[in-house]
């Protein structure tokens, strides 16, 4: 394949990564934005979403589309409920102290991950995509008669991957409408502004926090359900999404929702593109160091405004 088609393929794959990443990182960002805590177990909620999707799909065992749709509803609900329960039993009791929350969620990370190892086992398990047509894509070249379309071998994408990008966009728009247009969203944003004031106005802050923590986990689970027909479910699959979500949330400015989406696109696309041309390990080293430097020298994020 020539450079052009190669790059286009990388960008298409990158768009899929970006879509999933935007969902997952959005979950982390919503939680940080409203509750001001960092959830290190976020990647495990993602992993649980994928594992539950496998359970649902393999239990129903009918047409892949039925199992998939069922998983898309059930997995986020279950994971969200589990997260809300964790919020009430653990995080609320340590008063959301930022450092202790991180230590506790590190503990939860291992509990969820190792608990899955004990029940689900160490194998990676696939979920069949609901549909999966391969679509060959054209590219342009400068031929004898000027610009002409041609179909380079290997330049294709599946209908399912296109669906993933669209579905992620729809979910994010729905989230945005929820946060800006509904009473529940308004209450969440009021709590984010000033939790003491919100409490004074009779907002049940404890309930809002449990709900937000559940919502954040549910978003990660949705991302995982979408990804599992491409990637397979595995008990260690939460590590990379966690790291990438951190990167996205930091670059986008901690807690900024539009910043998170833009950063997810940026990182997701460049992740796909970089890994085509560089050693993935080297790319990860450089990306990790670059993000650490952003936190060190520009803690408000690349896209955030400097507080004054």
């Amino acid at each position, binding site marked *: 394949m020539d450079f052009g088609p190669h790059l286009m393929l990388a960008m298409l794959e990158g768009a899929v990564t970006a879509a999933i990443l935007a969902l997952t990182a959005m979950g982390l960002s919503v939680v940080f934005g409203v509750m001001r805590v*960092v959830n290190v177990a976020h990647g495990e909620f993602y992993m649980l979403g994928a594992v539950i999707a496998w359970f649902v799909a393999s239990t129903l065992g009918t047409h892949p589309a039925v199992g998939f749709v069922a998983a898309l509803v059930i997995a986020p609900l279950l994971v969200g409920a589990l997260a809300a329960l964790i919020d009430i039993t653990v995080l609320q009791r340590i008063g959301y102290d930022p450092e202790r929350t991180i*230590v506790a969620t590190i*503990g939860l990370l*291992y509990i*969820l991950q190792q608990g899955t190892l004990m029940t689900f086992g160490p194998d990676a398990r696939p979920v069949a995509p609901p549909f999966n047509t391969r679509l060959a894509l054209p590219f342009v070249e400068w031929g004898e008669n000027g610009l002409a379309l041609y179909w380079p071998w290997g330049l294709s994408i599946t209908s399912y991957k296109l669906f993933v990008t669209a579905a992620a966009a729809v979910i994010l728009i729905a989230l945005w409408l929820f946060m800006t247009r509904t009473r529940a969203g308004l209450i969440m944003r009021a709590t984010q502004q000033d939790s003491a004031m919100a409490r004074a106005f009779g907002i049940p802050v404890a309930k809002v926090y449990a709900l937000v923590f559940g919502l954040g986990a549910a978003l990660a689970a949705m991302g995982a359900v979408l990804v599992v027909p491409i990637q397979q479910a595995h008990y260690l699959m939460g590590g990379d999404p966690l790291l990438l979500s951190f990167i996205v949330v930091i670059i986008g400015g901690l807690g900024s929702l539009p910043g998170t989406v833009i950063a997810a696109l940026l990182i997701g696309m460049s992740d796909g593109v970089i890994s085509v041309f560089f050693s993935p390990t080297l790319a990860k080293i450089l990306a990790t160091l670059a993000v*650490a430097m952003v936190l060190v020298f520009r803690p408000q994020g690349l896209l955030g405004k400097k507080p004054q």
Partner: protein
Amino acid sequence: MNRPLALHLVVIAALAAAFFVLPDYHSGNLARIMVLAVYAMGYNLAFGYTGLLSLGHALFFAAGMYGLALSMQHLSLTAIPALMVALIASALVAGITGALALRTRGVAFMIVTLMFAQAGYLTALYFVQYTRGDEGFVLPQAVRQIAGVDLSSAMGRYFAALILFSVTLLIIGALVRAPFGRTLIAIRENEARATMLGYDVQRRKWLALVASGTISGMAGAAYALLFGYAGASFAAVPYSIFPLLYVLLGGAGTTLGPLVGAVFMFYLIDLSSGVTDAYMLVAGVVLVLLTLFLPQGLLGTLRKRWVPWLP
């Protein structure tokens, strides 16, 4: 002689006697635990005394481990010069990490240190032709000796670990009672107030982190030298979590907490690994229970309730 020093000497004497009393299996474990306790003591200096909650100390542990093992393996250095390389390597890595990461605080500091350590782990994987990545490499028994003492023998290994442990314990015991150590505690308690008393908080935090990283690095080097193995898994995230776990369990800001925490966790994981492969589950459960019910750890609670002079 003051009580804390006396207590430290008693602990050291008890550990020395333990070698002759305990069955081989347990004295072997104890050698490993002492090295891990040194790692945790280094960590405690940053977290327990100075209030720097790092999630990236595996970077320093690995810097020491690879500093020693790579220089022995590829440059054919003997143990003492290789230990020197490990010392310099971990001090250097801690110095650079500190200079950058200490520009942040709190949660950002935790994430920055985590990311530096992750970059370190990936670097170890990237140079796979030297490090053999996750699989790691073995240091031959022939080179694992200092002044004719075979460090791969049960006794040589145990007493080498004990010497390292004792020296570290006595140094830290003296340090935290000295003005410098008291100032670190003051920084942990109230950074703004320490600044407004004229202390250069930034510089002292950096010094504390360098000392902490260097001690952790020496533990890493000793681990490679005594157990004859170096691998990238020692640079991975769980090895940044372990010292945190030991220190939290034993009691942050207590001199003996790291040892107590390391003993408990080691045997807890050892016992559970007989039952299940998912031994990290235990670590997770302990972390959550500690944050919920025993934030001061075992010795911290002991000191608060009953033994106020506990160092």
